[in-house]
């Protein structure tokens, strides 16, 4: 093993220990501690947005700017790929 591998394994295992420890420290599966924001959305989604699907009302109404960002990312990716595969000489 080279020096790089030893360093890599060492730091990787430290990070791994903390991640696994974090997974055990988080709230028990299926019982989130705080749900205030989401309960608010579930209660009000139908009257405020008129949509029966609460997820869609979050995607397009409560967090509409994220969706705009997401479509922008797709647009960016398409523009980037067309640009990367463009013909180079006029």
């Amino acid at each position, binding site marked *: 093993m080279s020096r*790089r591998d030893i*360093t*890599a394994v*060492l*730091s*990787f295992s*430290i*990070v791994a220990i*903390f991640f696994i420890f974090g997974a055990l420290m988080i709230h028990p599966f299926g019982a989130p501690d705080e749900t205030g924001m989401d309960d608010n959305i579930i209660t009000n989604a139908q009257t405020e947005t008129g949509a029966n699907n609460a997820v869609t009302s979050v995607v397009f109404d409560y967090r509409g700017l994220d969706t705009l960002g997401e479509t922008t990312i797709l647009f960016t990716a398409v523009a980037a790929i067309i640009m990367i595969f463009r013909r180079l000489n006029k």
Partner: protein
Amino acid sequence: MFTLESLLETFQTGSGFWNPIIWVVAILVAFLIAVILRGFGNKEYKKNTGQTQAFLSGNPEYEKEQMHIKSSNIYWGFTESLKWVFDSLKKMHTGNVSDYALWFVIVMAILFVVLIVGENLVGAI
């Protein structure tokens, strides 16, 4: 908010001050002195005579390319004497993406140890 006086105000740094206008005036004065000094010698300078030629102890002039000091020759002594530092630094920059990601993981590990383990140790003491 914006007045003519505010332009000329002196900038207090807490333990001193800094006024660029005064500095510029001082620089201008120094420049003026330099111009005057230059004026003394300038009378004897004649164009298109032997004065403008490069004089290398009588040897013929080198090619332009050879006369130009390359950038890697500047500070040669400095870099040569600290070669071990620069060599190890160069070795760090492998140009390999995996290594870049590895540095990220190493920093993460160090910060984990310092911020979480170290903090508990300090707290225990």
